[in-house]
């Protein structure tokens, strides 16, 4: 067996987490640099994976397989397809930025440095999440995936509940209460989803006798595995519920605004840009891959929910008074687009959804991290506490605007490509759904511009008058992200190249063909 590249990519941040946690209490800065170093190392490995991946090759590449729990046929099976590669890259790319952006977030305040080595813990938890997310993107064994899907809740719980936003409006105590409320809500929602999924995982094993994606697919292909329609539907629902909580889809979304509002901006990025992607990714790989018939059966409902998410999320974003909650609701709207693209079951929709996951990750990271810099400066999350920032901190305002424009899918920036693909893909299969979803672009403009107008323009508020502009560290976060957004907006080919074959596989899984254009069909 060749060098286990995927294991190494996932193991490196895990080792980094342990190493970071072990740094002595007094060497805070060393811990930060160590964490950054490990995340960059992971990025290098991810790049190697990306380069080694051959778009025209097998469906799953760089596979590894070892026996794990032999009695239940659980194997440690890894492998990446194009979608996995794209999301693996996204995760590895974003984590260094998250770490740099969170550089001072976990410094113990001089007055209350009671907690035991918070800095080390914080960065170790981030690396832990990275390791689990990466492994879940490459796991091709359902059980292995399930374990990771659940396990990543633990570090996330501590990141949300333990390291909240210092810039909370209320007193420290009420901040702590709200924070732990948010963390518990996050945990309970996702655990509930995971529990139902566990039932479905066990059910799948009972029916299929295996946890391996490739074995199940093979068995279905050669007809040795026949699933009763109702069984397939129930199993599908079990899986889908968990992913819909994670994604999050209306009406299972309410944990997200709480969690994102209370967590620090980098942790919020971790939630929405990285961890939640596991949900949508899993819909594509597990729901569609394992239960194609049931997926088709559920499509009308899922599409309806996705449309509600899009419009509802956007409308609620307009009504928010808190910057981070606004972005959270915007994310709900965007997740609606992703789910829409997945379940439209057209090549464009699914390619678009995959690109959307990557692009949404980057654009939300850009917007949220800059918003985080803003919030740290003023110490408030309320939109009403800002005004005229553009005048005192033009670079901050500019990067914020670009992040916002990416969020509203301005052509030329990466999210446009994916959003348009999703819309086209949906429209060609379900025209009415496509048109309703298109109204999302108007609403997106509304909430982004309202946010920008209220915070950045107008007369300079007294409280922001002495606000400093972005510092070198913050620029090092914002500028590369924006550069990636522009690059992928103009030249998304490197991504579409790896995604396209994977989408073809998924399309053949669900045995769907793209609708023919009318004119060609007539010929």
């Amino acid at each position, binding site marked *: 067996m060749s060098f286990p590249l995927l294991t190494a990519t996932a193991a490196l941040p895990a080792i980094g987490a342990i190493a970071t946690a072990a740094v002595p209490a007094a060497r805070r800065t060393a811990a930060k640099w160590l964490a950054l170093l490990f995340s960059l190392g992971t990025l290098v490995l991810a790049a190697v994976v990306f380069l080694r991946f051959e778009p025209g090759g097998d469906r799953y590449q760089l596979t590894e397989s070892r026996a794990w729990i032999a009695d239940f046929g659980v194997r440690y099976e890894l492998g990446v397809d194009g979608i996995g590669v794209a999301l693996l890259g996204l995760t590895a790319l974003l984590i260094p930025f998250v770490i740099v952006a969170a550089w001072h977030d976990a410094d113990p305040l001089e007055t209350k440095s009671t907690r035991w080595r918070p800095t080390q813990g914080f960065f170790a938890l981030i690396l832990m999440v990275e390791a689990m997310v990466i492994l879940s993107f490459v796991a091709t064994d359902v059980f292995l995936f399930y374990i990771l899907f659940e396990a990543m809740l633990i570090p996330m719980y501590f990141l949300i509940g333990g390291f909240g936003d210092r810039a909370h409006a209320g007193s420290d105590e009420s901040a702590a209460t709200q924070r732990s409320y948010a963390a518990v809500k996050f945990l309970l929602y996702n655990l509930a989803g995971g529990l139902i999924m566990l039932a479905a995982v066990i059910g799948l094993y009972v029916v299929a006798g295996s946890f391996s994606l490739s074995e199940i697919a093979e068995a279905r292909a050669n007809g040795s595995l026949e699933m009763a329609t109702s069984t397939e539907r129930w199993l599908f629902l079990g899986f889908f519920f968990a992913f819909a909580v994670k994604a999050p889809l209306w009406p299972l979304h309410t944990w997200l605004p709480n969690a994102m509002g209370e967590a620090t901006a980098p942790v919020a990025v971790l939630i929405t840009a990285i961890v939640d992607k596991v949900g949508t990714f899993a819909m594509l790989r597990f729901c569609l891959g394992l239960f194609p018939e049931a997926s088709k059966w559920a499509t009308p409902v899922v599409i309806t929910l996705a449309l509600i998410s899009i419009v509802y999320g956007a409308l609620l974003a307009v009504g928010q008074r808190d910057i981070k909650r606004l972005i959270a609701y915007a994310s709900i709207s965007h997740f609606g687009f992703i789910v829409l693209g997945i379940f439209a079951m057209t090549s464009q929709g699914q390619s678009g959804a995959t690109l959307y996951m990557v692009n949404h990750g980057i654009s939300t990271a850009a917007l949220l991290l800059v918003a985080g810099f803003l919030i740290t400066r003023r110490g408030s999350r309320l939109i009403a506490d800002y005004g*005229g920032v553009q005048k005192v901190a033009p670079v901050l305002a500019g990067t914020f605007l670009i992040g916002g424009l990416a969020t509203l899918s301005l*052509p030329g920036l990466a999210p446009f490509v994916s959003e348009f693909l999703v819309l086209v893909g949906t429209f060609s299969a379900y025209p009415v759904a496509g048109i309703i979803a298109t109204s999302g672009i108007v609403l997106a403009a509304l909430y982004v*511009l309202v946010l920008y107008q209220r915070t950045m323009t107008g007369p300079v508020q007294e409280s922001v008058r002495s606000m400093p502009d972005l510092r070198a560290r913050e620029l090092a976060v914002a500028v590369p992200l924006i550069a990636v957004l522009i690059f992928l907006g103009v030249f998304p080919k490197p991504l*579409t190249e790896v995604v396209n074959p994977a*989408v073809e596989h998924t399309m053949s899984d669900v045995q769907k063909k*793209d609708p023919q254009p*009318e004119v060609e069909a007539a010929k």
Partner: protein
Amino acid sequence: MENLIALLVAAPLLGAAVLLCGGRRLDKTGHWLGTALAAASFVVGLILFTDMLGKGAEDRALHQHLFSWIPVEGFQADIAFQLDQLSMTFVLLITGVGTLIHIYSIGYMEHDERRRRFFGYLNLFLAAMLILVIADNYLLLYVGWEGVGLASFLLIGFWQHKPTAATAAKKAFLVNRVGDMGLSIAIMLMFTTFGTFAFGPVLESADETSQGKLTAIGLMLLLAACGKSAQVPLQSWLGDAMEGPTPVSALIHAATMVTAGVYLIVRSGAIFNAAPDAQLVVVIVGAVTLIFGAIVGCAKDDIKKALAGSTMSQIGYMILAAGLGPIGYIFAIMHLVTHGFFKAGLFLGAGSVMHGMNDEVDMRKYGGLRKYMPVTFITFGLGYLAIIGFPGLSGFFSKDKIIEAAFAKGGTEGWILGSVALLGAAITAFYMTRVMLMTFFGEKRWQPDADGHEPHPHESPKSMTIPMIVLAFGSVFAGGFFAIGDRFVNWLEPVTGYDHGHSPLSAATVTGATVVALVIGVGIAWGMYGRKPVPVVAPRGSVLTRAARRDLLQDDFNHVVLVRGGEHLTRSLVYVDHSLVDGVVNGTAASVGGLSGRMRKLQNGYARTYAVSMFGGTAVVIAATLLMRAV
């Protein structure tokens, strides 16, 4: 030669990137760089133009394929350019007028500390606008379409510290987004119908599909055009957009960007030709806006807003012409070009006046300025004559042709449209004369402002007057140049097609009627504003006047229905989310908590109680075992 096309876009794009990322060290030289790159783009345009003139009419179109943009199964979007006569016309207009306005801005923005950024935005606008007109597919056009929207947003809100400017910028972007939604739906319809959205294949096979689809595509394109070109019902942003610096109003909101809708309709001519229903809607929109804008223009005292109403109205002419089909396409473009000259000139003149009057915009506080600003007076005056269609000047030729084409539409429609166009011409003459009289004639009416500074009207610097002179030159001669010998028709015919049509009235009759309308309009204006002094405080006016001052209550309607309604909707949704969606979840949590509280009482701490439950449990297990064995 094709390879030069990308250079058209690259030059201003580079300028935008350098100026916006360059930082403070470019503050001193930034404006020169921006202007130079705009001029470079113009020069490239001229080179391509001369090259094009040297070729036969049929093979003038140039194509450049840069790279495959979004290659996805069954979906091909390329970054590819197409430069034909229609695009060429726009390229020259955009880069030409754009360069002039860059030069003008050097003087106009001299005292603004953020001048570098202003030039960066202007360059960004040029790049986006050029992408819009030279794209070879609808998706790339969409990129430019939104790009100019962005530039417009940035420039309207350039003075962001003014809340009105920030609001106006947001409004412009939002209303445009509604239009953009139309464009993207149109593109999606094209994709499902034709499997592609490149101009070539779509327009060639336009008649192979059903009428219904084409009408839908056409209407969606019209929605897009309405948003961008400020046509009813999406016109409300244009008046507010005057919050931006005047060069912006001249370039974006008069000469170029707002005419993108006309370009879109003319470019998609093949689709509209095959969808008469859509065409009918187009002409109705054009005709309504024509009158709407004119009426608004009559009532405004703000010089820029009066001109904005006029722009709306003139674009109404163009849309009207574009809706007439092959009869009108060429004249729509021709009016667009001449309008680009004289309206830009008028705006620059207005800017010059404001520059000399401490940024005062109320025409009632001007008066008699011709003595103080002779150059401005003359160039503004020439632009005025051009727009009202004074015989021999640019506007005369282009507008006259449109009115003629409207009559040539034939039937009742033709008569109605023609009459509306004529009426519009009369109103145009009225409000433009009003502007002219209130600004340059009569007694001086300015007073010291609140700080006690009395304005000292003076002529603007050379950098501002030279562009005005050039544009005035264009306003005077462009129309005649285009019209004589049907130069413009021959130039564009290979792209848009041309159909002379059969007018029920002879050309001479139409011209006569136009002149009569013109005289009537000027006469009424003279009667109202020339013979007697203009009151400094606006009289209350009739119901129509008051409504027109408020943009015919369109904003009030928007406010009540959309803004208020939206606010209520979002607020109630926030409530629903909190108490209903979240409430269900929290309710479940609370009931589980309550149940646990009850259950907790079973754990009373008495060992004997626990023993009973253990014992009972054992009994149940044994009973179950026995039963299982029994069964």
